[in-house]
């Protein structure tokens, strides 16, 4: 049975890179992997998502509604925007923060309440604060990936290798360190 992940967030916050690392890690874990994303307008601060489907043999790049097992969201509003891809068995990791929208009034408490109202296995953690504590502000998503690797039950070694294969040489060490921070988070 194939499994699927949605990565969602705000354009420019590194969601696509996180999904790239995850795709390579799954490939290293011997799965067939298909990934779908959209470039273009979405890079300018708009909503961004990427889908990753993995298993023995995958045909479709795009998952059906309600079919995804996991969500990796770098922002709460964007997590909420994509709940239709999830079902009562899905597991979510959401960065506990809101990115303002130009011209919109966002009721933070209501967004959070709304997100919690779904009967979901939801982990809400502020990874930006965690990154600040470790002086790793540029690797927030990698810290998240460290924690996420435990949720999707993929061996850490595949992610470490994927980080080395995906990122610019200068960024590899700090990102492996960041991954460990997330991985060791209880």
């Amino acid at each position, binding site marked *: 049975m194939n499994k699927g992940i949605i990565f969602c967030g705000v354009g420019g916050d590194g969601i696509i890179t996180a999904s790239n690392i995850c795709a390579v890690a799954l490939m290293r874990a011997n799965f067939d992997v298909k990934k779908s994303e959209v470039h273009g307008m979405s890079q300018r601060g708009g909503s961004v998502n990427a889908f990753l489907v993995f298993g023995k043999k995958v045909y479709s790049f*795009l998952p059906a509604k309600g079919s995804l097992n996991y969500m990796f969201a770098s922002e709460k509003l964007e997590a909420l925007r994509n709940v239709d891809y999830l079902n009562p068995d899905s597991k979510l990791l959401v960065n506990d923060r809101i990115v303002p929208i130009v011209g919109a009034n966002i009721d933070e408490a209501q967004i959070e309440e709304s997100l919690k109202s779904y009967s979901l296995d939801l982990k809400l953690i502020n990874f930006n604060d965690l990154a600040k504590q470790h002086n790793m502000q540029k690797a927030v998503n990698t810290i998240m990936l460290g924690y996420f690797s435990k949720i999707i039950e993929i061996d850490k070694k595949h992610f470490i290798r994927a980080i080395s294969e995906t990122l610019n040489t200068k960024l590899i060490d700090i990102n492996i360190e960041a991954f460990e921070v997330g991985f060791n988070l209880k």
Partner: protein
Amino acid sequence: MRKIISGNEAIAIGAYRANASFASGYPGTPSSEILEYTKTFEDIKVQWASNEKSAFEQALGASLAGRRSFVTMKHVGLNVAADSLMSSSYTGVNAGFVVVVADDPGMHSSQNEQDTRLFAKFAQVPILEPSDAKEAMGFMQYAFSLSEEYDTPVILRSTTRVSHTQELVYFDMHKLGGTEDKLLAKNISKYVLVPKNALLRHKKLLERNTKLQKLTNETPLNRIEQGSLNVGIITSGVSYLYAKELLPEANFLKIGLSWPFPIDLAKEFTKNLEKVIVIEELEPYIEEQLKIAGINNVEGKKFFPQDGEFNLDIVEEGLVKASFLEKSHKKYFEVPKNLPERPPVLCPGCPHRPIFDILHSLKVYVTGDIGCYTLGAAPPLSSIHTTVCMGASISMGYGIAKASQNHKVVSVIGDSTFLHTGIQPLIDAYVNNVAYTVIILDNSITAMTGGQPDAVSGFNIKNEPAPKVDLENLVRSIGIKRVFKVDQYNYKKTKEIIEQEINTKELSVIIATRPCVLAPIKIKETPYFVIADKCIDCKRCLRIGCPAIGYKESKAYIIEDLCTGCALCAEVCPTLAIVKGESNE
């Protein structure tokens, strides 16, 4: 090699393996990354052109020089290169020549969703439609030999989901043998399309069609896949993947070479099946081919939409309507209805923002163009009134200004778009004495598509230093007298000049010179912050539409991480409540 690659990377690798040695193109989502991957191959001479027509003809020239060549563009780019396509179908090629066109069903970043398959039919050139990255690589490779064997340009049609999706592909980087460079083609009766020659070439083209018709019924690119059910699905591109995922037991006719359409194969396929449907994104191209040929027991658009991008849910709904599938009762969550949308916006520090804030305050009519600055149409800036196609800002501004002299008209256009198709209408405006204001937003890069260099950037696709066009000299050389350069971060001076020029009864060109904040270098200066005590809740800074400015408890605040220090908010704040430096709160 085992690697996760995108469709665009696969196309570049396919070209490399097929011994392509020349590539040109104009950036356009979702096609832009093809040349960006191609530039990593040293044996391929690769460049960005100023528009698709120029790129197309450069590559055609390379083909005549005896080198395998290709050109890349998005679907609407082919409109610009349509002239070249229609006639190169008559001349044919020398070395293999492939036209890569990426369609954008669903318009993720486009102004329309036209279907390139109809262009192939119109121009009578073969078109290949891969479904995924693996096929894209193979089809691209094959396209060059198809082009040589049948003496024709070949279109490789990708779509957003093929170009931008990634999958695991096994491949090696060996070049194929048996593709020697050819001699420069010197054949006047073939390549000089005066009527006498062109009439003969038209006959040749029709002969070619007969041969291609035979090929399309025999090629493994069009294949029948037997299933256990007594129903059939005819499909192509990504639609094949959705259908295969949902109903793998059906019989499939998968189309990879869609023009000319394999009619005999389709007749054979449909003959013994109880029900057959066509699943294709956008136009009912396949469906029409079938019905014209008298294959009437098929339906397509009766069950599937003719607009937008397909996905599993849409294809499933169509299969249910066609009684191919039972309605499923999957559980999924509903997204709350009142959720605020998060549309794309101009980046923090974007040099276009001051211009649109000024135009908004001056209440002029603004004809816009294609690029990041199209986002100036979105609230709260709401200052662009038209965006139709590349270069249309200057020509439509011309039409409005000349047809009705009661309106103050401003045309805004980026540097890359100006060089693409903006120069000619500006010449028209000059020689016909049309009085209005043209603002060239010169950020010195093709920003919207990810920061590709253009003719004013000073470097080329390989990041090597390159000669650059001086826009001011170019505009002055037309003969236009009122030409001004402004730095938009100097808000007051910029506003003064724009105001002065829209009130002048003469053609004027204002060149706004601030570079893009993202490319080629990310610009991040000391951020600003709001002194809360001085903020009077007037919301003026919110009306510049900067994503780095938030609002909480009747006060504006600035998100340090996002602020690039452009100071526009500080310039417009009436109480000087916004200052440079990090807040110590």
